[in-house]
């Protein structure tokens, strides 16, 4: 089986789905000839032509608004927003239209589109190129929010998202784009939306995370004593959340640490802690803990590693939670 990095796996998924389904169109800033600023759409325009891989004007509201129209008219648009920080102009179209059309029309008009968005920090990028807005969109009913952390999951989840009848935001953690390769089947497969993955099984404590911080958590596990048995869960889909996998694990371990890059207040960690409290209260041995970004603007890169949840902070949280 060929080994691919995250960029290559997503590229392959796009190419295969465009081949299989002629309704699929890719659109966005610089996605055509240039293959996207991260090269995720590299070679697609050469293969599928300028009608299906489209360099749009520089306008995020335009990209998402017209994708909604394309979807209404029976296409399967896969728009790209160049960086998560530039979702801003598209917010109105995403939240006030894409998310609402099914409800608004009682199912008469639906918006099957998959918005691809590079996300997160840790790559020394300028302002608005390092944020983590997944909670904002998870809090907007009608949108599915995905964030794979591995090439295998990325391909399978992207195929599932494009085939999903509802609008999906597919966040791609930049820090992982080229960080490693793994075996990715060449054939067609889906990783279902809404299914978390147990990365490693354990009995003492549950760690829940998603995106690039999966790897910070793995690094933290390496630093913990061998007799500490951690169950690491990669959420993969932020909304709809796989609460079963989380609560089953916490009923077993009685302890949980949630790790995310996004700010703490009203971040997904708050939601997860509440779900655990609702479903596992009598099983808890310690309060659920959060290792997160702070309630501040994401700092410029000189300080970004002070902000991001790196492994020392995670190790400490796990130790404290275990000691409780």
């Amino acid at each position: 089986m060929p080994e691919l990095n995250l960029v290559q796996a997503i590229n392959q998924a796009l190419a295969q789905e465009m081949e299989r389904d002629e309704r699929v169109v890719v659109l966005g800033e610089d996605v055509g000839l240039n293959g996207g600023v991260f090269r995720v759409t590299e070679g697609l325009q050469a293969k599928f032509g300028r009608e299906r891989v489209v360099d749009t004007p520089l306008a995020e509201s335009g990209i998402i608004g017209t994708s909604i129209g394309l979807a209404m008219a029976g296409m399967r648009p896969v728009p790209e927003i160049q960086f998560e920080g530039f979702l801003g102009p598209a917010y109105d179209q995403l939240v006030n239209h894409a998310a609402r059309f099914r409800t608004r029309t009682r199912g008469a008009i639906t918006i099957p589109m998959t918005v691809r968005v590079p996300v997160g920090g840790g790559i020394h990028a300028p302002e608005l190129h390092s944020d983590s807005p997944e909670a904002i969109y998870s809090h907007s009913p009608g949108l599915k929010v995905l964030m794979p952390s591995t090439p295998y999951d990325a391909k399978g989840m992207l195929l599932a998202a494009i085939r999903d009848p509802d609008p999906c935001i597919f966040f791609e953690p930049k820090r992982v784009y080229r960080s490693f390769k793994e075996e990715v089947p060449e054939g067609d497969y889906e990783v279902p939306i809404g299914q978390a993955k147990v990365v490693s099984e354990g009995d003492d404590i549950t760690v829940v995370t998603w995106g690039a911080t999966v790897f910070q958590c793995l690094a933290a596990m390496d630093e913990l004593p061998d007799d500490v048995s951690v169950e690491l869960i990669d959420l993969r889909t932020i909304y709809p959340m796989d609460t079963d996998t989380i609560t089953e694990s916490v009923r077993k371990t009685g302890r949980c640490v949630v790790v995310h890059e996004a700010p703490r207040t009203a971040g997904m960690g708050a939601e997860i802690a509440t779900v655990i409290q609702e479903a596992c209260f009598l099983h808890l041995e310690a309060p659920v803990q959060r290792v997160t970004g702070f309630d501040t603007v994401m700092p410029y890169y000189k300080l970004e590693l002070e902000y991001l949840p790196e492994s020392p902070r995670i190790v400490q949280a796990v130790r404290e939670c275990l000691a409780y």
Partner: protein
Amino acid sequence: MPKKTVYKATIEHIQILDEDGKLDASLAKNTLTDEEVAFLFEQMVIWRHLDEVAFKLQRSGRMGTYPQNKGQEAAALGSGFAAKKGTDFLVPCYRENAALFLHGLAPHMILLHWMGDERGNQIPDNVNCTPISIPIGTQMLHATGIAWAYKIRKEPRCVVTYFGDGATSEGDFHEAMNFASTLEVPCVFFCQNNQWAISVPREVQMASETVAQKALAYGMPGVQVDGNDMFAVFKATRDALDRARKGGGPTFIEAVTYRLADHTTADDAKRYRDVKEVEAWTKKDPIIRHRKFLESKGLWSDKKHAEVEAKAKKIVDEIIKTAEGIEKPSPADIFNFTFAEIPEQLRIQRDTMRTNSLGQDPSQTGLKPEHAHTR
């Protein structure tokens, strides 16, 4: 009712100094004096050098992503020189560094910004500009608001805002144009049409033949100038500012120029644009024509050029030393500028950022005493 034409318009293109350094003397009247051109040309050489060194700093890992200004210096300098330093206000994007320097911004601050340090945006009170703006096409609304305030307070001040060709596709651009023209605010919209928005050429970006004609839809005068010609840029900007200052409202200026470098250091323009196109525009480099002009006037020579280059090197070395000599900010700075007064919960996050993962009150039963210090 018979058919009739209800609207008709043309767009003027102004060039005063051509690419061979030949000046149209009649158009050049009351624009720049020879001394001013010599001064501005020296600036051009210095800031071109800074730009090239900044590129190298990125390549050697001493700076993050950097967008080169190379080739667009005449547009920045001609327009920046037309605005009154200390009175007028600049609202930039990121390809007009030289204009900001003319208005007193310390050059190391631009480097500091691209070195991932917010202090590069901490504009001193005596410099009239906003910092570099990352979200494309958004800052022209701020410019409109600033100009509006000047109008409300009847201050004889104007704003010049800068943005690219690509930026004119964003909705905010159109909202700014409409606000500015309906409110008749003293704002000059200065579009640096450098032909590309990353990999997207102007003709893919828009179906209109000129960018300037977009102004007409908003009832705003629109003019196109050769953006590599400081005379034309200066004249158009000064005229626009004169009118704005007298209450005549906003103007749109399209400066036709070219991005001679990659979009940023993270880009590779060879993937999408023809080297022949770059070669053709290299011949129109503002450095070439302004030097030729000054030489024809006997105001420049190889010796003078060598002197200015040596001066540029010294100045730029100093700027880099300053930027790199600034110590890493304190991690507490992540928190300290979020609000005028830090809220209690944020203060706790700041003061325990390295020690607190628990976020729980240690007085809760169950917390083992050895961990109580973590608060």
